[in-house]
């Protein structure tokens, strides 16, 4: 082997090694965060922690109202964002022609995704809480979170709809289908797994969001569950913020437990999205 080939071999080996190192370095923090929180939080999580409200100035008891609140906020966000998000995605992918208007809409959607969540929070406070007089409430929070979630849902759904082969559309139209029949009977069923994945990823963002609900939905402490959509609610991310910074002498156990529950919430959503995706891939006929 000549010296030149030898050197090229070594360059290649060093290259591969640094890429592998970069990959490992990115994974380490994720593993540590998840690992530490789950291990430390595990001892706090028991039936009482999950089913009882906080007591003794939050230093004891459980986090049930925050769990229920986060669930309700996610549900409300889904109800408000999914129909509009999927509708907009269908329009952009199937009906809208490429012109200045649709390009402007697309740029707007991309930019909406980049707006800091605190700005959404203030917007929701101004529009829903104060101007429309919904008050600090689940409705105001869910609507604000929905606006924040929409860009994710629209862009992933549009992507999923566009990935359905064009030939299916041509066949359906050539068999006498209208454009809407083609969308409803061929395109949407085939795009559904991708759309669901996008919806779940979008909702995941809403579930973990703190700044938005701080302004629009969250209460510091509520002795009971909300009775109506116009009531304020406790929620996991905000509760975590409160017990970590606002309550002196807070047992660290409860803080880790709360973080673990929030994390498990998100991990379960991720798991569902992954299962949907892999099952759809296995069954896909194109």
């Amino acid at each position, binding site marked *: 082997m000549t010296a030149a080939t030898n050197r090229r071999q070594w360059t290649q080996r060093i290259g591969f090694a640094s890429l592998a190192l970069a990959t490992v370095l990115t994974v380490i923090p994720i593993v540590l965060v998840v690992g530490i929180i789950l291990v430390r939080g595990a001892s706090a999580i028991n039936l009482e922690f999950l089913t009882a409200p906080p007591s003794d100035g939050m230093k004891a008891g459980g986090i049930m109202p925050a769990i229920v609140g986060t669930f309700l906020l996610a549900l409300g966000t889904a109800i408000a964002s999914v129909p509009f998000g999927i509708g907009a995605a269908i329009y952009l992918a199937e009906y809208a022609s490429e012109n200045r208007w649709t390009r402007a809409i697309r740029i707007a959607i991309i930019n909406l995704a980049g707006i800091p969540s605190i700005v959404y929070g203030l917007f929701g406070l101004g529009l829903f809480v104060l101007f429309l007089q919904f008050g600090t409430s689940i409705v105001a929070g869910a609507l604000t979170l929905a606006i924040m979630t929409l860009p994710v849902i629209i862009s992933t759904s549009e992507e999923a709809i566009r990935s359905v082969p064009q*030939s299916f559309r*041509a*066949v359906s*139209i050539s*068999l006498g289908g209208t454009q809407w029949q083609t969308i409803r*009977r*061929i395109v949407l069923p085939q795009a559904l797994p991708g759309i669901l994945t996008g919806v779940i990823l979008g909702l995941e963002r809403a579930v973990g969001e703190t700044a938005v609900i701080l302004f629009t939905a969250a209460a510091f402490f509520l002795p009971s569950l909300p009775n109506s959509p116009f009531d304020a609610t406790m929620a996991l991310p905000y509760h975590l913020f409160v017990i970590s910074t606002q309550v002196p002498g807070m047992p660290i156990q409860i803080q880790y437990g709360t973080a673990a529950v929030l994390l498990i919430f998100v991990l379960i959503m991720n798991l569902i999205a992954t299962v949907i995706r892999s099952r759809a891939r296995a069954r896909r*006929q194109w």
Partner: protein
Amino acid sequence: MTSPKISVRDVSLRYSDGKESLRHINLEIERNAITVLFGPAGGGKSSLLRTINRLNDLTDVDHLSGEIWLDGENILDPEIDLIALRRKVGMVFARPVVLPMSIRENLTYGLELAGEKNDATKDRAVESSLKAAALWEEVADRLDDPAISLSGGQQQRLCIARVLALEPEVIMLDEPTSGLDPISTGKVEGTLQELKDRYTILLVPHSVQQAARTADHAAFILEGELIEFTAGKKIFTRPRDQRTEDYIEGRFG
């Protein structure tokens, strides 16, 4: 000679990207016969087919002029019922595109779009269209299997059957055997010969040999122009135009 099923009169077409076009095409397509459109790729054969069932409406067309008469109706008229037209003029594409559903559902899809709900009617259509496409024997016992599980040749015959299930009057096939092995190709060609008694068939073949094998009438299309059209197979043995002769003898294209 009876009146033609389709008359194409002075049809010109240009796409907005300027890629492929048709220039002043005039063509009469006879009923109960196979009319073959052959010529080099990109010459406008597919464009002509896609104009006849108005599938080009989905594409960016810059300019379209002329008339296409089908049974006394100008189908380029913007007011025409496109759904009815596409049921009357069925289309089979170059690559077999089976819809992501079962064999049976592929066949009943078009009927269901048209509002057919009667199961007995659908079952009859499934059986008769599969028999007409010479596929019944091979799939009768697995109609509920995914259509994608069929071989390439079977898929293409399923696509033909899917068109037949709608009881069209004209069947257009755009290089229907381009991805098939010789045995499957033979089966598809045999099917077409049987079908021509009942339908008007318009075929873009994937080779000159196939054109010569299948044609009752043939048109040579080059760069958007119809160079030569003859009744019968004369064009393959005694072409009048030098360009036709060059193409048939493999000197270009």
